[in-house]
C-alpha cells in the first residue's frame, strides 16, 4: 500500500520498491547433494519429480527434459551424474525459502 499525498493505491511489492526508489535484493541459495545411487539419471529425476509433486501439492512442479525440475517461482532441482553416483543441485531464492529448505532436507540422504 502506497500513499501519495492523500491518495492511496495498492502495488505489487516489487513495483512498490521501485516507486520508493529502493531495489529489492535478490538473495539466492544453492546447495549440492551427493547421492550414491545406481541407475540412470533420468529414472532418478522421475522419482524425485513424483516425490516433489506429492510433497508440494500446492506449488507448480514442472519437469524439464534436461533432468531438471522447477518448483514454485524460483526453485530449481538439477540432477546429474553417471550410473554409480549422482549430484543434486538445489537452488532457490529467499522468497521460496520454505520450499527450498524443505526440498533439500527431503532429498538429503538420512
Amino acid at each position, binding site marked *: 500500500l502506497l500513499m501519495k499525498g492523500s491518495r492511496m493505491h495498492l502495488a505489487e*511489492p516489487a513495483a512498490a*520498491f521501485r516507486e520508493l526508489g*529502493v*531495489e*529489492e*535484493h*535478490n*538473495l*539466492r*541459495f*544453492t*546447495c*549440492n*547433494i551427493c547421492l550414491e545411487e545406481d541407475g540412470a539419471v533420468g529414472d532418478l529425476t522421475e522419482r524425485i519429480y513424483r516425490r516433489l509433486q506429492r510433497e508440494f501439492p*500446492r506449488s507448480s512442479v514442472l519437469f524439464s527434459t534436461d533432468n531438471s525440475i522447477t518448483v514454485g517461482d524460483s526453485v530449481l532441482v538439477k540432477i546429474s551424474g553417471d550410473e554409480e553416483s549422482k549430484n543434486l543441485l538445489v537452488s532457490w531464492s*529467499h*522468497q*521460496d*525459502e*520454505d520450499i527450498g*529448505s524443505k526440498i*533439500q*532436507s527431503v532429498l*538429503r540422504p538420512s
Partner: protein
Amino acid sequence: GKRRSDGSVLYRKPYIFGSPGLHVIVDTLKQQGFSSLKVEESEQGAIIHLVKEDSLIQVDGTSTHIICDNEDVRLRLKEVMLRCLKQL
C-alpha cells in the same frame, strides 16, 4: 503466517531490500564467527570464499548468491545477510 479458510498456513513471502557494501557483509561475517575469509573483487562484484566452511558468497550490490552444501552453515550465512539487509 495467516491461515487459509481450509486451515492450511498461508506464508507471506519475505521481501528484502537494500544493497549493503562489501565491507558491511565482511564485517558482519566476522562478527558472527566466520574468520577464514578470502575476498576476490572484480568489476561485477565480489566473491567471498569461506575457506574453513567450504562455501562461497557472490555479491554484486543488488543480489547475493550463497553457495553452501552444509545446511547449518547456510542458515548462519542467511542470518548474516538478513542482518545486512532490510526486511518488509
